[in-house]
């Protein structure tokens, strides 16, 4: 389990808490960079777009959705491994989960937030976004519950809430540890954060019970969220979007990209926060195996989609398919196939699965592939629907590209803030995996 020898309980506390308690200039520089990139690449262009209108983006009357929506789906997808994986592994009692799940759940939270930001950026009149919530008002207006977008609002807010509670709940004993290790204001704050956790048997029992309950609760939620997101597309009759396979396809793709995302995050934690002792070969190996499985499912669904479109023989669908496979964006399509269907097969070899660097590259390639997958779905279907005379084309504007780049900075910023406020690895659960207590600390 531990590559570099088993640490003592005190070492665990020290290792993990030191990330929070000791802050060097490198951290500030990194945070400063990500924040600046977020502001310059994301918020400033968005601000400009708010002033002139969504026309600042490249969308047009043939393509009403663009990168904002495809990025939204990408980020929702990325959110899918954290909480979901953590919950599944918790229920199945997999010990290797314990050192990865906290960061994975944080990833869920922050990618959901980034995704939510993309909804805002996408909207024509974001200043009225509250109308999509069922808030009683004197106009007697109510949202339309037939709309898949309404399902989205419901699903995502529920998922965000549940994930937040889940990650918070799992962190309570660790907040207590932070409290115990600090003084002054921080101590007072974490006293509140940990609800006065004392570590009594009753408290542990309640936590265990509640945590398991939430794990069970969150799993179907996660599955439903990306199903619902897929329905934004699949419930339309647009050729290329109107596929019953979309819900499982999106869920699978989401978990796939999320898992790859976890690999990337693990790599960074290990490398930059010196968590080598806690994140080791076993994690990498298990994540690699999971990725292979997901990649195979993903490929299967893709083949299925192609087959059923071809077999269905609808002229609209075939035309859309032809454009996807051979049109302007075909290189992107084949790039996606390469990165998501073929590259991951390398992980069948232990040489790749056991190499942090190789796995980092593979995981990033998978996510590039998944980012393009979402873009292709949006960019190849709706500009070529039913009336050939209204066929058009979509290409993102520099504002969309900039905002896409900026969104990664937002995610990174949130993560950097997170590691200063919450132990990035679950202290108490890592301790649970230690061999019986050594008394030499």
């Amino acid at each position, binding site marked *: 389990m531990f590559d570099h020898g088993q640490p003592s309980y005190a070492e665990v506390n020290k290792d993990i808490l030191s990330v929070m308690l000791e802050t060097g200039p490198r951290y*500030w520089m990194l945070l400063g960079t990500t*924040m*600046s990139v977020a502001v310059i690449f994301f*918020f400033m262009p968005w601000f400009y777009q708010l002033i002139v209108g969504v026309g600042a983006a490249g969308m047009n009357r043939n393509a009403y959705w663009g990168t904002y929506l495809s990025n939204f789906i990408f980020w929702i997808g990325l959110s899918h491994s954290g909480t979901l994986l953590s919950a599944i592994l918790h229920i199945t009692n997999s010990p290797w989960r314990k050192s990865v799940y906290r960061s994975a759940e944080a990833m869920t939270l922050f990618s959901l937030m980034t995704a939510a930001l993309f909804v805002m950026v996408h909207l024509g009149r974001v200043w009225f976004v509250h109308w999509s919530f069922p808030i009683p008002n004197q106009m007697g207006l109510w949202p339309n519950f037939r709309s898949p977008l309404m399902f989205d609002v419901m699903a995502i807010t529920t998922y965000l809430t549940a994930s937040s509670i889940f990650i918070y709940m799992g962190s309570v004993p660790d907040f207590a540890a932070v409290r115990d290790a600090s003084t002054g204001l921080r101590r007072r704050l974490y006293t509140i954060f940990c609800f006065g956790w004392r570590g009594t048997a009753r408290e542990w029992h309640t936590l265990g019970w509640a945590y398991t309950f939430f794990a069970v609760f969150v799993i179907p939620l996660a599955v439903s969220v990306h199903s619902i997101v897929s329905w934004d597309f699949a419930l339309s009759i647009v050729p290329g979007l109107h596929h019953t396979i979309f819900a499982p396809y999106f869920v699978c793709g989401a978990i796939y990209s999320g898992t790859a995302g976890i690999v990337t995050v693990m790599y960074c934690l290990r490398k930059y926060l010196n968590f080598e002792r806690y994140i080791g070969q076993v994690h990498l190996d298990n994540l690699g195996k999971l990725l292979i499985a997901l990649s195979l499912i993903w490929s299967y669904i893709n083949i299925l989609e192609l087959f059923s479109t071809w077999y269905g023989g609808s002229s609209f669908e075939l*035309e859309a398919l032809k454009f996807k496979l051979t049109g302007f964006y075909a290189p992107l399509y084949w790039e996606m196939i390469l990165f998501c269907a073929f590259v991951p097969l390398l992980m069948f070899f232990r040489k790749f699965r056991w190499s942090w660097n190789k796995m980092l590259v593979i995981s990033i390639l998978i996510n590039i592939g998944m980012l393009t997958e979402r873009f292709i779905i949006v960019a190849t279907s709706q500009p070529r629907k039913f*009336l*050939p005379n209204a066929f058009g084309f979509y290409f993102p504007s520099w504002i969309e590209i900039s905002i896409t780049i900026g969104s990664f900075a937002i995610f990174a910023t949130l993560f950097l803030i997170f590691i200063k406020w919450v132990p990035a690895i679950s202290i108490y659960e890592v301790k649970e995996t230690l061999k019986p207590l050594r008394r030499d600390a």
Partner: protein
Amino acid sequence: MSKISRRDLLQYIGAGGIGAVGGVLYSESIERDVELLIPQVVPPEDYSPGIATWYNTVCNQCSAGCGISVRIREGKAKKIEGNPVHPVSQGRLCARGQSGLNVLYNPDRIREPLTNAGQRGTGNFYPISWDEVLTTIGSRIGRLKIENNASRVRLLTGRVRGHLDELFAQFMGLLGSDHYQQYDFTYPSALKAANKISFGIDQLPYYDIKNADLLLSFGADYLGTWISPVHHSLAYGHMRQGRAGRRGKTVQVEPRMSLSGAAADEWVAARPGTEGLLALGIAHILVSDGHYNGSDRDQWSDVLQAYSPSAVSAETDISEGNIRQLAREFGTSKAALAIAGGATTAGTNAVASAVAVNALNHLAGNLGQPGGIIFNSDQAFSATPGTRQAGMQGILDLVEAMEAGEVDVLLVHDSNPIFSLPDGVGFRQALDKVPLIVALSSFRDETTEQADLILPTNTYLESWGDDVPDPGVGFPVASISQPVVTTLYDTLPVGDIMLSLVRQIGGELPMAMPWRTMEEFVKERWREEYEKRGSADQDFEAFWQAALEAGVWGQPGVMTGDQIVPSGASTIAAITNPASQFAGSETDYPLVLHPYLSASLLDGRGANLPWLQELPDPLTSVVYGSWAELNPATAEDLGIREGDVLEVETPAGSVSVPALIFPALRPGVVAMPIGQGHTAYGRYARNRGANPMDLVSMQIDDRSGDLAWAATRARVRNTGERLQIIKTDGVTRTLGRQILGPKNDHA
């Protein structure tokens, strides 16, 4: 910089960004400026907020003379629709007519009198008072009159009909100058000349498309730009589907498919310039196959001897079988009608072609018949519209006079010869020899830009006047123009300007033309007409009110009276070989240039109207620009793709335009829409596209004296540059989808 301040800075950036976004969100969610509901302190009397009033008047966007109704709310014109009781438009209107609002509220209207302060052609103009400008012109003309040099005053207008025409004529007459002429690029001079030859009547007859069973159009885009598009469209709709069990058929002969060609059942792309020959070929068969049995059959047979199907087929590149088929249909249809226009009547053979088409109508026996050609025997008023159309010959005479220094004062109204004439005419250069150029205009078009003094005129929606549609509708009709809104700026109706000049010039003029305003003048003339026609059942005021309200007066019963049926003799005598002579040799210039009137901008007068600039061209969907069309095969031969910038060259000049591949164009032809390429004329028109008139060689059809603008050869060179043609069409094939008809219709 310390660690803390870096941190602060970043926080500020973050907070600032969020604050700014929040600010925008907040400001977007609150109300905007409140505008006043009723802008005037004392509103006009016919002004009731919230209630729309409709005023009837006449469209002036082309020479059809459609009656229009303008919707007024709170003193502003809001919409133009067809006047339902007007026999020309019958409640309908074309895109151009509806865009009249863009004329009225055009941001580039001239808002006050202007002078160039002695720097002609620089485009610099300075405001000047009406008093000053009228005194200047009045005294200048007055002096010429006293010196008996009034013939040194020239008046050039666009199409002017009704009593404004009479006002101009009286004015010039009293001065002692007979140099009042009109020039309208779209005026069908050749048609008129041919009709005079064939029928001995100097007017445009009424073509009764509505009741025809077969309409054979030689180049006339009767649904888009020819003579009276709205009226023809109404007739077309009726002819197609308005008669149970009897669907009229249309055939269009033209090298480039026009709107009318697209509507036709058959589109026949005869070799450019040979349309008249095709007509004679059909006529030949009509006579030889016994479809015509008049007493003068032998004479017809003789004169048509040379135009056998085989000879005509060789010239026109239309198969013999096709010609025979057309002839058979034309000969056997109950009501077959042939019309000519567009490029067919814009060659060096214009009149010959039109005469050839008249011959078909003779042979079909449709003269004076329903579904044929109806002569407007009784014109409303004494006016004979179109008689002052100078044609190209008149313009050349004017240019010559200007060059010779015989013109001291040139008054130009509503005519833009600099834009719509080929450079070869030399109009622009001749202006340098004229000491005083006065433009009476609402817009600073190319010709107005050259003026010394600009007298800003009211638009037609702010003016009094009247109109007699030309051609009529087969019975006497006259329309009244009235202002529908109060004048927007410090401008005057053109009639009022002329009457002010009358008073400035003095002498016997004010006595002979005592009216203060155009309104007074029109009303008096209508009173005279009323008394002459002697309808006793109403007093004039009641009649006038009724006419004003209706916007039109007419006598529908008069149509069926005795129709003139001219003999065929003069047509027979006038038939000559109608083969057009093209400028430029075939070896140097392998293509034929086919300029055509833009469906929306017409001859360019619509180019300053944003609604028309934004209206996709009906056949190509292009907006905001010009282009040169090539047949796909021709383009492939020349290695040209859509969007390649071409240099189109003719003996007269060259222009650069992007290429557009157009499937319904005869190979070997390069087609270009007329209308763009303005160098002035306001923000929507200026510096946009190219003007094909720059390519047209100066050639004249002798018999009508009109410009042969479709008789120039051209070559194209791919410059290697590319330019995006802005169009709204995506893919223009249905891909077998259920769009134009039920699916089982598609094979």
